[in-house]
């Protein structure tokens, strides 16, 4: 098979599976997952073969386009574009998605809408593949939008619950705001260059003045920010936990949120050329820290992981913002693995304990040992403990920040310090959950079914070894594929510092857990803990986290985002943030929908009704012609004949004498006429 065909199959197979399931899913029932998993497994094989092909390949492995449409004389081309970046992300997405799909067969067992779940899930994954393999910006946007729709459907999967409905709506609308940026960028570029081919556009844009490039960058970045849940558009991410856990596992690791980072990676030469990088770095580092702080006091296990996702995405963004393309992609890939592992483990815990509140989970590790081990591996990877995958990728990110200090000491230094702080906090919040939920005495729970455990173990295995894909000095590595020829600098002392930071986080978490147990009256408070708590670290950090929680920045942000719209709408008098958010996002859209519905009823339905009435009139007219005209003619002929017959039958009296008289009269008449003619 040619690489082009292989690249086509990667998104096409899950899309075909989705189509197939949409039609036959209901009839297939529980077997529908086989179709989805089969298609995805083939996609995984195709992705791996693409990755093998991309190793050491000069330039893009696949760049094929077909003309899709001609609009205003401009040919719109759709196609495939696969290079090292696409191939490596594809493999990660396919591997994670396959594992999550297998997991979902166990987690969703017995669900009423089981086939529907796998239909949308397949389409969702197909769209992510589509985003990664698109050669055209318009095509990318198409998949991007459909992915948004699928996220809406999946987050709102339990649509019987109002919070799920609201979360789905919020995610859809919030990401849609950023998508406007992508739409504007596509429109601008299409209008200027008459093409949507990404490599061509990147080449053309490199010749443009900085201001124009900067504007395009800002538009694309807006889309990436809302999709990848960066500050201030992160507000949809924690609420998105209303969906089923497999959805969270895929949406928050490999697909949805990864798409935003991928977009920036794809257009990276443009971002570098436009000097846009600091604009990526600042929101990125802020989101990294902010997410980590919020995760500290969160009590919902899935929401904790959601804030953690935000924080890790911030890492990727800040790596991109300091020129660390390889570091960002590396972290994107390892994060995809260990975050999905964490989500699946959390789902397993939720499955076993029937709660999402970490305060109600105690000593789960005793009776669910495999889940506990998997969560531990995920937590270690996320914290950056060597030699797990997260350690290497996080170190690559920090190395990228360190590299920035040589050019801009203050900029790079600030980022590095905050990055290290975040590393400590990440280990802290992760192990606070781990110690609290899995360690210590607890109730008896049942380990999850094998369908859920198997993919978790597989992902755990990948998480352990995934760091090897970018070992410094390796001939075949991620860096060699993404930026061939560039020698990556390894900083042994930074690795040590990063590992120490992670270790410190774990230690603080352990002490904090002991402290909490002590406070709950299960033991005396050790003096060193009192010092730790009394002002050195824990109290300020917890205080900040609680303060931020009580500040309810989510709501304020929701309104900051919409403030200009609010001002325009003249709704500024309604100051309650929730009301404002509701007023603009929910009611506003609702009102637009209502007015559209009104237009629909009056104009569209009116037109339809008018056409209907006109048709009815025509039908009545033709009916009249038919009954009165045609039928009338026919009836008339018949009636006339009948009347004539009625008239003529009077002549047929049956009286013999009458017949004789007629005979005589007409005989005489005939003779007379004959005589007259012969005369």
């Amino acid at each position, binding site marked *: 098979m040619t690489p082009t065909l292989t690249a086509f199959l990667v998104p096409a197979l899950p899309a075909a599976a989705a189509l197939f399931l949409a039609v036959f899913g209901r009839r297939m029932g529980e077997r529908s997952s086989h179709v989805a998993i089969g298609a995805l497994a083939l996609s995984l094989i195709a992705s791996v073969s693409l990755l093998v092909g991309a190793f050491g390949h000069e330039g893009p492995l696949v760049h094929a386009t077909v003309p899709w449409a001609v609009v205003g004389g401009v040919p719109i081309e759709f196609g495939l574009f696969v290079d090292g970046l696409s191939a490596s992300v594809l493999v990660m997405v396919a591997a994670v998605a396959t594992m999550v799909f297998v997991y979902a067969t166990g987690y969703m067992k017995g669900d009423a809408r089981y086939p529907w779940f796998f239909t949308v899930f397949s389409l969702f994954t197909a769209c992510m593949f589509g985003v990664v393999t698109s050669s055209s910006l318009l095509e990318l946007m198409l998949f991007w939008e459909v992915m948004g729709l699928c996220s809406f459907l999946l987050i709102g999967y339990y649509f019987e619950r109002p919070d799920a409905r609201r979360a789905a709506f919020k995610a859809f609308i919030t990401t849609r705001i950023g998508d406007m940026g992508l739409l504007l960028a596509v429109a601008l570029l299409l209008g200027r260059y008459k093409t949507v081919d990404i490599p061509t556009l990147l080449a053309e844009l490199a010749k443009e003045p900085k201001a124009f490039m900067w504007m395009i960058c800002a538009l694309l970045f807006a889309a990436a920010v809302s999709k990848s849940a960066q500050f201030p558009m992160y507000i949809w991410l924690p609420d998105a936990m209303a969906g089923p856990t497999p959805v969270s596992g895929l949406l928050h690791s490999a697909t949805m949120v990864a798409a935003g980072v991928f977009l920036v990676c794809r257009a990276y030469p443009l971002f570098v050329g436009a000097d846009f990088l600091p604009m990526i770095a600042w929101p990125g580092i802020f989101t990294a820290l902010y997410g980590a702080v919020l995760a500290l006091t969160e009590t919902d296990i899935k929401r904790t992981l959601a804030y953690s996702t935000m924080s890790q995405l911030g890492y990727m963004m800040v790596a991109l913002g300091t020129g660390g393309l390889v570091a960002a992609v590396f972290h994107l890939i390892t994060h995809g693995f260990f975050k999905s592992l964490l989500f699946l483990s959390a789902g397993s815990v939720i499955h076993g304990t029937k709660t999402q509140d970490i305060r109600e989970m105690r000593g789960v590790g005793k009776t669910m040992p495999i889940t506990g081990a998997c969560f531990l591996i995920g937590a270690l990877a996320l914290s950056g403990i060597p030699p797990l995958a997260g350690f290497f990728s996080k170190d690559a990110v920090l190395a990228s920040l360190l590299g920035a200090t040589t050019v801009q000491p203050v900029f790079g230094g600030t980022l590095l310090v905050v990055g290290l702080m975040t590393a400590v906090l990440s280990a802290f919040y992760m192990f606070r959950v781990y110690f609290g939920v899995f360690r210590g005495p607890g109730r008896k729970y049942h380990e999850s079914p094998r369908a859920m455990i198997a993919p978790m173990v597989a992902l755990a295995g990948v998480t352990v070894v995934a760091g090897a894909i970018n070992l410094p000095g390796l001939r075949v590595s991620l860096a060699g594929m993404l930026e061939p020829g560039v020698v990556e600098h390894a900083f042994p002392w930074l690795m040590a510092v990063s590992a120490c930071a992670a270790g410190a986080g774990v230690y603080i978490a352990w002490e904090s857990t002991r402290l909490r147990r002590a406070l709950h009256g299960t033991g005396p408070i050790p003096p060193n803990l009192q010092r730790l708590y009394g002002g050195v670290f824990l109290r300020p950090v917890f205080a900040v986290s609680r303060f931020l929680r009580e500040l309810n920045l989510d709501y304020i942000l929701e309104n900051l985002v919409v403030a200009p719209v609010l001002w325009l709408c003249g709704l500024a008098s309604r100051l309650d943030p929730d009301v404002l958010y509701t007023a603009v996002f929910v009611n506003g859209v609702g009102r637009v929908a209502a007015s559209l519905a009104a237009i629909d009823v009056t104009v569209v339905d009116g037109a339809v009704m008018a056409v209907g009435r006109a048709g009815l009139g025509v039908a009545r007219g033709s009916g009249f012609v038919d009954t009165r005209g045609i039928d009338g003619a026919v009836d008339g002929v018949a009636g006339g004949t009948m009347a004539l017959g009625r008239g*003529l*039958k*009077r*002549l*047929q*009296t*049956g*009286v*013999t*004498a009458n017949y*004789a*008289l007629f005979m*005589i009269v007409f005989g005489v008449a005939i003779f007379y006429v004959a005589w007259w003619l012969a005369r």
Partner: protein
Amino acid sequence: MVPPVYFMVLGAIVFLIAMFGFLTRRSLLQALMCLELMTASVSLTFIAIGRSMPDGGLGGMAMATFVIVIGAAEIGMGLAIVMLYFRRHGDATTDDIDLLGG
């Protein structure tokens, strides 16, 4: 010698009488008699006309012979019908025979 026109006038008078009788008599037998009278008057007329023809009346007489033969056949049929009708209905008047009435 009596001119042929007198015979023709006599034939016409007899025909009219027979016709009047045919139209007014209610008995089928009387109607048949009137028919016979009509054919007789027609025969008389043929013979009278034949006299003035160049062949010396042979054609007229031939026609009269044909009329007599046809009249015999006709009266045979007619009498058979009347007899059958009479057997069926007990009488034979034209007033009752109106099955063809519309």
